[in-house]
């Protein structure tokens, strides 16, 4: 790899959405969404429920298809369902609200499986990677257990390790702490903060305003399928411009 190619790839945004529209039946859930996400950027999506933020997040690895517009990841348009799309998904990590760890596999096996079956990494090497990652997210001691034997916070950290094992270019977090007991939210956010600090490109849908403030490079506020406002976290939280954002913030910050 030469200096110039690195520079070139550094300049182009990692994720580009332009003119994206999507309907769920009569509901126009994404309306002409344009968005560019730079390499190493942490973008936090906030907004009222039903505003389309989860849907937007899920279109980036095509778990949700779009009706019109285009999405490119690392310069390549999202392919149709098939081998090409599978290859692209391997490079886009995803963490779900409900963890979705494979219930019939041990924690270690959860992190090893896709490395071996998708990336064709030799098993020993995959286990090494898995153990390193599990240690890093603080659940190394639980490697031989099954997901149901872990707390929600532990499961979610395993899910993060599982996504990281694929060495993704970008990580998508779809309300990663919404299903957690309050005292477990922080252990997950800590892992996410350290990822952000290491320069991982992240798209995070969350209701954790503290995380948005401390870890985001940019906050997007969505309402009714549109990105209503985008700003630095500091500017957004101290001086929101739109009425929708003011209204939303007043409801969640003073209760």
């Amino acid at each position, binding site marked *: 790899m030469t200096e110039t190619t690195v520079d070139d790839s550094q300049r182009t945004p990692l994720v580009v959405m332009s003119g994206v529209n999507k309907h769920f039946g009569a509901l126009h859930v994404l309306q002409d969404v344009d968005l560019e996400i730079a390499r190493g950027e942490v973008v936090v999506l906030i907004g009222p429920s039903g505003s389309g933020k989860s849907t937007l997040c899920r279109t980036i*690895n095509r*778990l949700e298809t779009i009706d019109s517009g285009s999405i490119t990841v690392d310069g390549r348009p999202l392919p149709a*369902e*098939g*081998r090409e799309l*599978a*290859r*692209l*998904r*391997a*490079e*886009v*990590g*995803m963490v*779900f609200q*409900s*963890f*979705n*760890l*494979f*219930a*019939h596999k041990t924690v270690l096996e959860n992190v090893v*499986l*896709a490395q071996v*079956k*998708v*990336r064709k990494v030799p098993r020993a090497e995959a286990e090494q990677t898995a153990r390193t990652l599990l240690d890093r997210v603080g659940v190394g001691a639980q490697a031989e257990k*099954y997901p*149901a*034997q872990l707390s929600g916070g532990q499961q979610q950290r395993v*899910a993060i390790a*599982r*996504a990281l094992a*694929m060495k993704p270019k970008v990580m998508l977090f779809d309300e990663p702490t919404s299903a957690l007991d309050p005292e477990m939210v922080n252990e997950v956010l800590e892992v996410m903060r350290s990822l952000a600090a290491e320069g991982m490109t992240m798209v995070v849908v969350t209701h954790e305003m503290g995380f948005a403030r401390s870890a985001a490079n940019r906050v997007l506020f969505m309402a009714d399928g549109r990105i209503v406002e985008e700003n630095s976290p500091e500017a957004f939280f101290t001086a929101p411009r739109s009425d929708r954002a003011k209204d939303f913030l007043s409801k969640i910050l003073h209760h």
Partner: protein
Amino acid sequence: MGILFEDGNFALFRDSFLQTVELSALSALLALLIGTLLAAFRVSPVPALRAFGTVWVNVFRNTPLTLLFFAVVFGLPRLDVHYSSFVFAVLALGIYTASFVCEVLRAGINTVPLGQAEAARSLGMGFGQTLTLIVLPQAARTVLGPMSSVFIALPRNSAIAGAFSISELYGAQQTLNERGYSILTIFFWVALAYLFLSAVIGLIFRFLENRLAVAR
């Protein structure tokens, strides 16, 4: 009750019992293979495969097994397909039972939370990998109970093969009957043999259920 131990009856009974076991085991294997494939077809994104699965299930699940035996044993030779009656019997029992296996598995697939498949796909697994590595193993575990009913029915259904010149357990009943023994005594031993088979299959499934339970 002692007829089993007279006049070489025991050898006849034993051989026919083993024939029933062999017939059931082979058709169980065939049913499991075809049934799993059909279930995969029925949940696949390809409409033609889904249609194929649906037609198979509706044709073979709704056809009386005796009729299916007739079709295979007398119909296939007309199409110049010639095998022993044993192979035909395995075929008839296998494709019939496969439709039940398919439907039980499909019910199991529907119990696996969608998020499991989404997680697999988000890691770059294709449809085949998602199904075979993530969804089917969990589906199979949840349907072990109803699946045991399907496989307990199989050896009992295999009795129909006795009417198509296979010397299995039910065939032995005919032979012993012709030798003039009391029908009640004959049926006692035949029933006992089927009961034994069913119990063993039931125990195997119970064992699997205990070993493979998925905690959520």
